[in-house]
């Protein structure tokens, strides 16, 4: 997979209350959730984000609640992937399960600036700026995770598993 998009840069420990505040969670509509994506961390995000854009962050991205709506909001707002120095585990699993690529990069957070235009190549494991000046290596996606992601998330994955069982 390779995509081109604007980088939205965030810091460390971006928690789920910043990504998707609890006060909006009584409405489960993805479009409603996307309107408030990242509201606690950057008020301009939800209106400015375009399809393909890439979220780059520091350590422990997605810490806090198990709320899957944090992923739904990002995905529905058009974000193509989240690159972070590390992820909190529930967020990481939720992203895989909903088919949003999440990739670890120890350096992307330090190398790229907010607003940079970059190319993400998940197969070549590199995030590079469109002018070629900056690049950051990505860690390989574990194979079992790749399988689920490759199928578009857990729902299609489980569907296939159930179908195989029946056959």
């Amino acid at each position, binding site marked *: 997979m390779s995509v081109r998009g604007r980088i939205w840069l965030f810091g460390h420990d971006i928690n789920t209350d910043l990504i998707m505040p609890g*006060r909006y969670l009584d409405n489960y509509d993805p479009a409603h959730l996307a309107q408030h994506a990242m509201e*606690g961390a950057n008020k301009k995000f939800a209106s400015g984000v375009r399809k393909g854009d890439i979220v780059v962050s520091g350590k422990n991205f997605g810490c806090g609640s198990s709320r899957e709506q944090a992923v739904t909001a990002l995905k529905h707002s058009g974000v193509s992937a989240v690159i972070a120095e590390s992820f909190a585990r529930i967020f990481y699993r939720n992203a895989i399960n909903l088919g949003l690529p999440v990739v670890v990069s120890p350096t992307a957070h330090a190398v790229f600036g907010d607003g940079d235009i970059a190319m993400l190549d998940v197969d070549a494991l590199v995030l590079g700026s469109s002018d070629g000046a900056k690049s950051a290596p990505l860690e390989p996606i574990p194979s079992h995770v790749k399988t689920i992601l490759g199928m578009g998330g857990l729902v299609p994955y489980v569907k296939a598993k159930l179908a195989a069982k029946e056959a």
Partner: protein
Amino acid sequence: MTVDGRTASEKILSRASGMLKARAGDIVEAGPDLVMSHENTYLVNRSFSEFGLPRPWDPDKVVVVLDHRTPANNAQTAAVHASIRKLVTKYGVGRFFDSGEGICHQLLVEERLARPGQLILGTDSHTTTEGAVGAFATGIGATEMAGVWATGSLWLKIPKTVLVNLSGHLMKGTCAKDVALSLAKIIGPSGADYRCMEFVGTLVADLPMASRMVLCNMAVEMGAKAAMVSPDIVTKEWFRGYGEDALTVVASDEDAEFERRVESDVSRMPPIVSGPHKVEEAKSVDKFEGVRIDQAFIGTCTNGRLEDLLAAARILKGRKVAQGCRLIVAPASRRVLTDAIDHGAVQTITQAGGVVLTPGCGPCMGAHGGVLGPGEVCISTSNRNFPGRMGSEEAEIYLASPMTVAASAVAGKIADPRRMLE
């Protein structure tokens, strides 16, 4: 050199997956003994219904609790609640706790649904709380739960274990919450990422079940996947109190491989307060004394139990909540509420000027029952002080023990509870 000993996590996840030799780092396909979801059962079912299955793989193992927005805060939530009530009947789920019964984590432990040696999955990050009885309990997302409902299993990486050895005796005016906040500072918000935290030591041996739940609850604020206190005499006595004698006990071997050991002697630890926005900003109460507050909140899956309400009542007895300050108390369950009534704590709280809410999460996540406005300051017994957690992003949340919160309510500003315990 390979060690023979195994951690409790290795044992429980080996058993649950049938991979009897599995070790930390291995990925296993494990079948849970119990699965829990709350209002997000709505989301679980949205994904589950795509599979076209008549019901979850084993409805007896499914627990559903309405606790986050109870009674319903608006028409939307009321509709979600109503749809969940229909679902649980249609699927014949094992246990359903409707609005007002209490917080999911409290109910799983209180009703002895969580048991030593079990693998428990909950669609809530604080599912680690249930590790207090010696279970491996971890949080997952709603779609993942739909997968579990469909197949009865999920992949899990067996975590390494961080051993937290707590020694010494708690000083007057301090409790497990102060220990948990101080650990958040020592370990940091991601210091236990993907790990199981196991609490041991002379202090832990003395702690009752309710206090053990506090430690396991807050472990997730340090990134932990699971947290555990291995079953011991306190665990056995606790189950025996409900007439249950036969317990399967799974515990870490002494020669198990622990990734890291954290030692902490609590003997001189003062009451601790975590400053706004970050749990790890934990300092001695005197650093914050005098900060004006608008609201004091006692409750949640961290500190809404009987021991917490009794501790608060000791401070509130014969005193009044300060003018201009609100005291809100949400018992963690109906049983906690009735016990607190029997012990006179509810009377003490209300006479002091506090209000008691429906058992449940209360304003913990900013949905209802005490939402904060811009510029307001709250001191709370909950587990998260992130911006916007309880309402406005411009509000500030301080975290503390029930005693410190009660003392602060009386003072109208952050206060050291030791001064009110003379």
